[in-house]
């Protein structure tokens, strides 16, 4: 490539030699990203058009996997609905909670801040902390909640919390929110320090009158990048909920109330050996998440305007 000549073009056109260091720095990540993520993703997309039982060779079936899940699979439609309910509630609520708590902590002394953030982050720091709720909601009188309610006389016999179609969804939502102070929360904490203190001073002079205006006009716009990150992480986690309901409510859960798309596709792949169908489901889920990601990106761009 020819070296850029004019002053006007320098900074835009860069010679190949000048670009080499950047390629070198990007290479290690790109290599393993393509190898371990992009190629398997492509394989999964291709497989979604096949019927594949992991024993015999894949058979091309066109869009039939997609037609099957949308028009001929009542359980899939049910899991899609459950997933959307969980995502619509826990996604935005988890996003707000992890920002609001990080913002609250920001005004405490460092030591108080470290202790409180440790407490909030605890469920995420201790892997699989949700199993404590399995003990708590245990259906016999040994469960903490049953034994407590029995002892104060509110109930006369143990409630089957996790086997009751009315209770199971609210319980899963509550536990998911309880666990949501994870990656986004700490990312917000580190992002809040990017807000330049001079901006606050300038804001005070420019007529910002209260902490809500300060939040909307200074803090949030300064954190836009971090907010996008935590929104995308919330989308990724809230649409992929599966381990939690499987552990707490089992699979299939009572009346399929909390079976999610990811639990269902894992079942299709692991138990029924329908890898093609499982791939098609994950492709559809991926498309839904992309649409949500685009909408959320547009909303975040509106912050502070």
């Amino acid at each position, binding site marked *: 490539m020819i070296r850029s000549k004019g002053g006007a073009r320098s900074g835009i056109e860069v010679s190949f030699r000048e670009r080499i260091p950047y390629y070198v720095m990007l290479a290690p*990540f*790109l290599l393993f990203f393509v190898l371990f993520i992009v190629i398997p993703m492509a394989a999964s997309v291709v497989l979604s058009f096949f019927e594949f039982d992991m024993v015999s060779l894949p058979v091309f079936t066109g869009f039939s996997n997609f037609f099957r899940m949308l028009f001929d699979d009542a359980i899939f439609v049910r899991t899609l609905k459950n997933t959307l309910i969980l995502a619509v509630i826990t996604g935005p609520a988890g996003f707000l909670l992890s920002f609001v708590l990080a913002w609250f902590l920001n005004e*405490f002394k460092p030591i108080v801040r*470290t202790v409180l953030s440790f407490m909030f982050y605890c469920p995420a720091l201790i892997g699989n902390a949700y199993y404590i709720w399995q003990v708590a909601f245990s259906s016999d009188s040994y469960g903490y909640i049953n034994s407590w309610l029995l002892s104060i006389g509110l109930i006369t016999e143990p409630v089957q919390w996790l086997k009751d179609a009315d209770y199971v969804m609210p319980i899963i939502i509550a536990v998911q929110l309880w666990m949501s102070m994870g990656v986004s929360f700490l990312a917000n904490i580190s992002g809040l320090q990017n807000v330049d203190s001079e901006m606050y001073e300038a804001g005070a*002079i420019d007529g910002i009158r209260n902490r809500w205006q300060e939040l909307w006009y200074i803090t949030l716009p*300064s954190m836009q*990048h971090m907010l996008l990150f935590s929104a995308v992480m919330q989308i990724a986690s809230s649409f992929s909920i599966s381990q939690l309901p499987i552990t707490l409510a089992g699979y299939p859960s009572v009346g399929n109330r909390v079976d999610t798309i990811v639990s269902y596709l894992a079942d299709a792949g692991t138990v029924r050996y329908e890898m093609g169908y499982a791939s098609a489901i994950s492709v559809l889920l991926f498309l839904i998440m992309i649409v949500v990601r685009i909408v959320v990106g547009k909303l975040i761009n509106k912050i502070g305007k």
Partner: protein
Amino acid sequence: MSQSKSVLGKPGLLKRMHENRTGKTSQSKRYTRSKAGNTLYVTFLTAFGLFSILPLIYCIATSFKPLDELMIFPPSFFVKRPTFQNYLALPGLLSNLRVPLSRYIFNSFFVSAVTTFLYVFVSALAAFVLTKSPLKSRRGIFTVVQYALLFNTYTLAIPQYLIFSYMGIIDTYWAYILPHIATTMGVFLMKQYIEGSVPDAIMEAAKIDGANPYRIFAQIVVPMVKPCIMTLTLFGFRDVWSALPNGTIFDESLKTLPAVMTQINAGGIARSGSAMAVTVIMMIPPIIVYMVSQSNVIESMNSAGIK
């Protein structure tokens, strides 16, 4: 009830803001909460904190429960007659392992340290290039990285396994390390952080001074993104430390501490106290990493106010 009562952090900043407002604009009152609001706020934070710390307390309390107390009715959350017997039973349980415990401990620390270091380093390098380089393809690559994060990992497992075995990394330490390097979350977080904290003007100035991209990265970008490096170190360590490789490690002498936990958990209810004791011991390193990394983040938060 104003900023002068220093429940509020960032002393330098708030003091200055306070002076600004009282001196120049006399609006200090409006920035603060009412007394009732403040009480509500502190109560909410404390309640949420206590609620969040429940599993930790539960694990610690259970690890000190004697066997009979693990099975009494009604179940008790706290321990009544604490005992060390669950911990004292561990050496006996652990002496039956197929390879010496020291081997698992070495593997765990070795794999966690190497993986975390490479993960943070490789993510930071890639994020720097994707944010600040003149490469035209950087936007396109970043879009792919960001969307790849949304793809469910379940259906990736089989193709990944085939690739691992084709590369010959099954049953080597690489099976722990390499998949983590490809984790897109680190690049995404680091990229967003650089966007928010490293101005293009600094890059231009460094270029004019003749610094090459490697030096710009090491001497300008890395110090500026230290809080993010600390946070990413925590995420990386936490994930690797508790990872139980799924069908990629068969050689017992290459396994890590989570494999020991699985063996003890297999002992059933009689060992549930000891299983909890191991869980508590396993939590210590991530907690230490948490404390070190987050106190660094918060420290740099304060110095950012002074600059």
